[in-house]
């Protein structure tokens, strides 16, 4: 049932990954168990270190919102995204137009080839 799956070029064996998962989990747990347990709860030792500044009470103040994620990627591809977003206009007649256009192209190819 676990078995190997041959792709024509190589194979996939899930049991090797399951073994890896258990070994990695064991190592991670062992590493964790080596940590110190003598810290004092409720003191500064328990606090998040935030570049030496006081940590804001509301998590919303220190969160990077989703729309800011991959800012550099989006900035680098601005011209591409300007065109792609404009293409997704949200206008129903555009949707229908592209559908009819693609259908016409496929039909034309059918006649030609």
């Amino acid at each position, binding site marked *: 049932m676990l078995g190997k799956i041959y*792709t024509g070029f190589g194979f*996939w064996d899930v049991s090797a990954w399951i073994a890896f998962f258990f070994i990695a989990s064991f190592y991670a747990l062992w590493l964790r168990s080596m940590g110190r347990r003598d810290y004092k709860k409720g003191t500064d030792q328990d606090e998040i270190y935030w570049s030496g500044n006081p940590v804001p009470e509301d998590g919303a103040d220190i969160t*990077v*919102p989703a729309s800011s994620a991959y800012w550099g990627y989006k900035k680098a591809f601005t011209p591409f995204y300007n065109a792609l977003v404009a293409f997704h206009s949200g206008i129903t007649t555009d949707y229908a137009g592209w559908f009819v256009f*693609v259908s016409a192209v496929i039909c034309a*190819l059918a006649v030609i080839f």
Partner: protein
Amino acid sequence: MNWSQHLPALVVAFPLLGAFATPLFSLGGKFLRNLLFVAVSLVTLIIAFLLWRNVLLHGTILYVMGGESISLTLPSGFAFPVRIMFEIDALSAFMGLTVAIASFAGALFSLQYMNGFSGLHRFVSLYFLLTVGALGMSLTGDMFNFFVFIEIASVASFGLIAFWRDKPEAIEASFKYMLLSQISAMLILIAVGSIYGKYNFLNMAAIADAIQMTTVDKLILALLVSALAMKCGAFPMSMWMPDSYAESPSGVTCLLVTVSQVSLYGLIRVCFTLFGTVAQNSFIPWIFIVLGMMSMFFGVTMAVIQHEIKRLIGYHSISQVGYMLLAFGVGLSALHDPRALADYGFTALKGGLFHMVNYSMYKGLLFLAAGALYYATGTRDLDRMGGLARRMPYTTVLFLIAAAAISGIPPFNGFVSKLLIYESVFTVHPVLSAVALVTSVLTLASFVKIFQTAFLGPEKNQWKSVREAPAGMVLGMMVFGFVIVGFTLFPSWTISNLIEPAAKALVDQAGYIGAVLHP
């Protein structure tokens, strides 16, 4: 009478009965309606499973509604019975089972997700009709019946997408889908009418036996390909998809995902079974490959920049459909050459089919998890979410499983199907694999973004009172999670019992024809 011989009828009749019984049961109160909802969905799943098992054990099943045998030719003089005829091979049974799993999971989830809204008897009726349409499309052996079932599924979808009719966005999404679906339906009807006009058949096996490759036939094929490619969400005809998936209730979205896969099933059934060896020599494999490449790339690049969770996952649906189109295009191109089919074509088909079922499961789970977040927070905007893993541990773990699977992270099932696709399409051209790999990297980037912004990070004050989704919703998600983990841990069993028989059925055009014409 052996009741098991009526499984093909029962699997469609049961949810159909459920659809019409729901208003009556609703008179008995909420409990009775919910009981009917879950019981009918569960029984449909059991029947679909038994049907799949029967097909694996005994081969293709033929079933004629209202006729004692398939060779009974009434009205007299007709070569084939003009009735609703089901021809269920391993591919149809595989698709039917996928639909039934998604329908059951969505029903379980919807019980509490939809609790508190009015008009739920209409919701449940439409939900069952959508299931009927999808199952009928999977099992039918008749082109006109296929059109009828696609219309049943479409009409039910319009109602379900616009179910929250006080939201203008939901009405707009439904209208957009309705307009495109009706154009698609007209194209299919013209194609089916042309087939009937030319060959005097509507039976798929009979058409496949008689089909030639005249200009009219090529145009019929072109109409069916473009109509069904739109229904399954191929770029650039895919723009309805994020709108519809985002605005419909999440329990419905997970079923809509599977219905789009049934349209893809219809597409490959037409190209491989109906036109088969005739289609492979034409431009069609390259249409598949080009649409697949565009869908993968443009779908995922649009997804990366979204910050509304269901729209983001909706754009990923387009890119995932691209993988399958690419795999089936490569498989179709190799169909005429036994050596190419053995070398890479059959592997591509197995990859495409495995990805179909994987996609239905992990995308269903992703939409349900997104629904659970919406249920708990009242927003779909990722900018407003954060730190929810502390409050919603089950949803977090289930989302993580689905996100890892769609991103193709080993050892999850999504990795296995993607690996089969990468390595087989590489033989045709390395660029195909390169685009697929880039798509996978961007997919991972998108889901890292969702996971980080919704579940991780510091807790926001406004979500301190958030609770885990109710048990019924978690149970619905667990159905998908269970299947994903099963496919992940037992890929060899899945390929041998579910995927390979379906792939063999897909390439065995003679077997499909012979089951009806030479029983």
